[in-house]
């Protein structure tokens, strides 16, 4: 459903957008955290290899 459809009242349209914004924010946070995690895993793997543990 498209929130721009003219059959939606302004209140419904706003509710729809608010839900979309909240989802986008959470997804953004998760993707950001994943980027940090992958960076940290890479550094950790390199340090483990360098110290000859693996």
């Amino acid at each position, binding site marked *: *459903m498209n929130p721009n459809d003219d*059959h*939606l009242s302004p209140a*419904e349209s706003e*509710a*729809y957008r608010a*839900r*979309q914004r*909240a*989802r986008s924010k*959470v*997804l953004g946070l998760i993707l950001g955290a994943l980027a940090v*995690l992958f960076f*940290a*895993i890479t*550094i*950790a*793997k390199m*340090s*483990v290899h360098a110290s000859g*543990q693996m």
Partner: protein
Amino acid sequence: MDAAKTLTLPADWRDFFALTKPRVMTLVIFTGLCGLLAAPGDIHPVLGFTAILCIAVGAGGAAALNQWWEADIDAGMKRTRERPLPAGRMDRESARDFGFALAGASVMVMGLANGWLAAAILAVSIFYYAWIYTVWLKPRTPQNIVIGGGAGAFPPLIGWVAVTGHVTLMPVLLFLIIFFWTPPHFWALALFVQTDYAKVGIPMMPVVAGEKATRRQILAYAVFLLPLTLVPWFIGGTGLVYGLSALVLGLVFVALSVRVGLRTSVPDDGMKPEKRLFGYSVLYLFVLFAMLVADRIATVQGWQA
């Protein structure tokens, strides 16, 4: 559906979170962490964190797939009908896609960070819960909980293998302990919510075999669990800290199970011994695994042989 009259909002992110069964996840995280901490060897803290994260996310994915499959059954039970799918707050495809995404991502990340053996066991555990238990066993056999208990038994095994890189007797024993703990734990719950399972046609033990047989089996599993939890001590995998804790915890477990196992309920009797056993069983597993870690710390510190 008339779209002009009913506005279907995109599912709230909180409902996606609820789909992962966060409360079950706490036990999964805890036992996985204990397996990781009790294993002999070192793991880089970042890789250890990643292993636990992957175990948790994998369990969340399996839980989402379970609710995608069981939405109709959940709608018929008081305990589950307010979940996102039966309550109509999310469409089934979203739950399915979310479950597959979490499951796939957790296995891939675990493989890259912690090795492919741990990742393979994680994949098997997700498949075990989402397919073998949910789709195959649960609607077919009153032994569903016995074999399905395997799904919850994987986390400490995965945590252990993430550190050591191979499967030995000790992590398999941890697996078996949770495996044999699950039936008395769950049947105690099923005894006081049995009417709900009967209504939706799930063959839970109390519904199919009757209350008396269920009580006997709870007792049998509890009695078997006691020596099983002592095996890690007998084979020298753990020390006195764990051994004595397992003995005391197990004796209490058996004592509470004897009360449940040998009595017959009367209508409106409150089912107090069953509720007490269920509550204790959760505490039991938490403390037993915490003692496993405490034992490892005591050994590393040189406080025990």
